[in-house]
């Protein structure tokens, strides 16, 4: 029984929150269109959080994610301005992010620098480059309409953004849970020295994790720009903390204390549902932040209490 609560307690919490909001506001919150809308609202946060999950699997943090989101948005519009076609511009943005991820991963694994510090530094550098590219201004105009379609509209009845989330989550789940590299990443996160002595190569595997995180953050920057039709040099600022909040909530679900993709999705959904539900109920955004923070704290404390009881 306690094992069941431990594995599925966080998921149960999500269901309870959804039911509670549905009762409080049956017409608006509980409507199918609003529930589908939530999946769209959570997409960008969830994709950043999935990147963070991969980095947490190797036991590290990537604090440069928010900077890369902003950077991705600015760079793609910058490339449009100089006449680069949309598909090439997007690939170039993802490649640039991969380079940043590779640098962070290399510094962290090869020189054993704390990832907190290394990615904070890399994030600061990326922030500087972003402001340099846009000269501090919001960029709009020159954005091709077909590019904007990747972040808006619907496909087969679901919002396009939701499809992105489904695709990214499936790929990340396969990488972490189904193929060899995932075993190596979790082995490094579980016991780096043991993994190394068993022949797992720390540097390339850690670099891989940071590259995934950086590329997913840049993808979010691109999708954000496509959705709102402009790019702001601080557009990604809000994603860092809520993405890690989603990962931490997710670590309380399904597996014991390990970052995992299904858990992160539940975590991101909890944050999105609370935001959406409170907005519909007309609660002010300040109060929303206070409530969200309290719920995260409560989830982690409940889990700790459960662990000590076991």
């Amino acid at each position, binding site marked *: 029984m306690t094992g069941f609560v431990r594995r599925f307690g966080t998921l149960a919490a999500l269901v309870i929150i959804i039911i509670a909001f549905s009762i409080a506001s049956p017409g608006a919150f509980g409507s199918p269109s609003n529930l589908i809308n939530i999946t769209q609202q959570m997409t960008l946060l969830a994709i950043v959080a999935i990147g963070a999950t991969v980095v947490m699997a190797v036991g590290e943090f990537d604090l440069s994610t928010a900077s890369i989101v902003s950077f991705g948005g600015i760079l793609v519009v910058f490339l449009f301005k100089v006449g680069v076609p949309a598909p090439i511009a997007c690939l170039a943005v993802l490649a640039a992010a991969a380079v940043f991820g590779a640098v962070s991963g290399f510094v962290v694994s090869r020189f054993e620098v704390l990832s907190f510090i290394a990615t904070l530094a890399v994030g600061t550098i990326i922030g500087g480059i972003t402001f340099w590219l846009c000269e501090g201004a919001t960029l709009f105009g020159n954005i091709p309409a077909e590019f904007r379609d990747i972040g808006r509209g619907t496909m087969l009845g679901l919002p396009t953004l939701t499809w992105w989330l489904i695709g990214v989550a499936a790929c990340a789940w396969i990488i972490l849970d189904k193929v*060899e590299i995932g075993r190596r990443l*979790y082995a490094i996160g579980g016991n780096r020295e043991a993994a190394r002595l068993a022949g797992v190569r720390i540097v390339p595997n850690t670099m891989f994790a940071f590259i995934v995180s950086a590329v997913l953050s840049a993808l979010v920057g691109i999708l954000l720009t496509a959705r709102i039709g402009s790019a702001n040099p601080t557009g990604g600022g809000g994603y860092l903390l809520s993405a890690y909040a989603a990962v931490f909530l997710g670590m309380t679900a399904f597996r014991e204390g390990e970052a995992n993709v299904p858990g992160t999705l539940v975590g991101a959904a909890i944050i999105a549902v609370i935001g959406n539900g409170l907005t519909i109920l007309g609660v002010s955004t300040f109060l929303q932040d206070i409530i969200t923070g309290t719920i995260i704290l409560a989830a982690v404390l409940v889990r700790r209490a459960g662990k000590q009881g076991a």
Partner: protein
Amino acid sequence: MLLSIKALEKRYGGARALAGANIDVAAGSVHGLLGENGAGKSTLIKTLSGLVTPDAGEILIDGKPVTIESVRHAEELGFRFIHQELSLVPHFTAVENAFVGRAYPKRGPFIDRAAMARAIAETARDIAPDLPLDVPAARLTTGQKQLVEIIRALIGEPARLVVMDEPTASLSDGEARRLHKAVRRLAERGVAVIFISHRLDEVMEICDRYTVLRNGATAGAGDISYIDRPGLVRLMSGREEAELIARPTPGGSPVALKVSDLPFGDHGSRIAFEIKAGEILGLYGLVGAGRTSLMKIVWGATSHREGTITLEGRALRPGHIGDRIAAGGAYVPEDRRHEGLIVSRTIAENLAIANLKAVRVAPSLPWVGLAALKRRAEEVKSALSVKMSSAFAKPLTLSGGNQQKLLFGRWFGRPIRLLILDEPTRGVDVGAKAEIHAVARRFADEGAAVLMTTSDMDELLALANRVLVLAGGEVTAELTGPSLTPARIIDAAFQHQSRKDPAA
């Protein structure tokens, strides 16, 4: 008698750490506590510090029996412990370090730094006059840090007994001499000192009395002036007539591992040796002799600048574990929890991590199959008779012996040409020990060259065809056949070569 310990016993699971240990320590004397690795010295000390509760026996202080309940209680009794791993705050000075965890002198609500400095200067004048007191501990030498620890032991409630665990293990001779003086002055102040050391010459020099532990029991005790060095060695090894199974080196087999000119230890010495296919080479040495770091170099976990390592003629690049694995190498580390098991992952994954290709669903697809993971775990389970409930349970649900088998099982299923074992049965009960020995022998019989280090003399004698003894950064003996006896091994292990003092 300040301290008397009578017939102390302590069991850990099936293993007896103490089995009738006695020791009497008088105030104002320096008492040498001797014994080979695992003889029970550490457990005895832990019972004094309140970390371990003995199962039977008595501890008497001034003739009155006491139960030491906690570390705090031991401290109140006036016991002080100076461990091998020093616990100083690196950027604190000697004065600041000496007061950590003690009552600070105060002036009003503020710490009175002048009074702190005065108190320490007074003690230091007595114990170690030339110790710099205003330098951060990080910039002190190991010997000076030891002196800070001694001073620290004398701050606060009056110290009656100071236990020093191998304080000179990593000191140069000059530094060791300075420490010896400090220890003598400590005794002159009426403090009793228990001095644990592997340097027999220094024990003969500075101790008044000795107690030798063997297999958890007191093997001998007395006045240091009535015994000589060979006498102490005899008491420690105690198995001159031990039954010896002749384990001859396999004759015709070719050399598998060849190590030449490899830097070893902290003093610029080199080591070279060969192991034949099917041979088990044992490395014996006291704690701190550099065995583990040598094993790590051979495994490629630590890089090296000079020297070469070849396995069956293939050169192994320094620091490349992958080279060893590709050439048929396997490694079982010393520290199961920190270097061996990935405790957050399942047993099956722990068994598969070194050879993920073996658990693919299809040979060309890097997709890990749950069925394949389970099948592999079941294979290892039956081959090594691992007792486990489920392949997908966590490794810490197993007993120590079964956990250790997982580390062997990790390499199972492909031809092993080199097997490196670092303390293969530490913390494992007797039955599992025999099974693990059988596994190690099986790897050797199948043609692996085995390099093993162990602190357990019985294990060494049970497994090794040949033994290299390391001491003070040198190979002090190579023993095989009839010369492979406990007494010869212990004698070579205690042959501490005097090092040149860099300051002298």
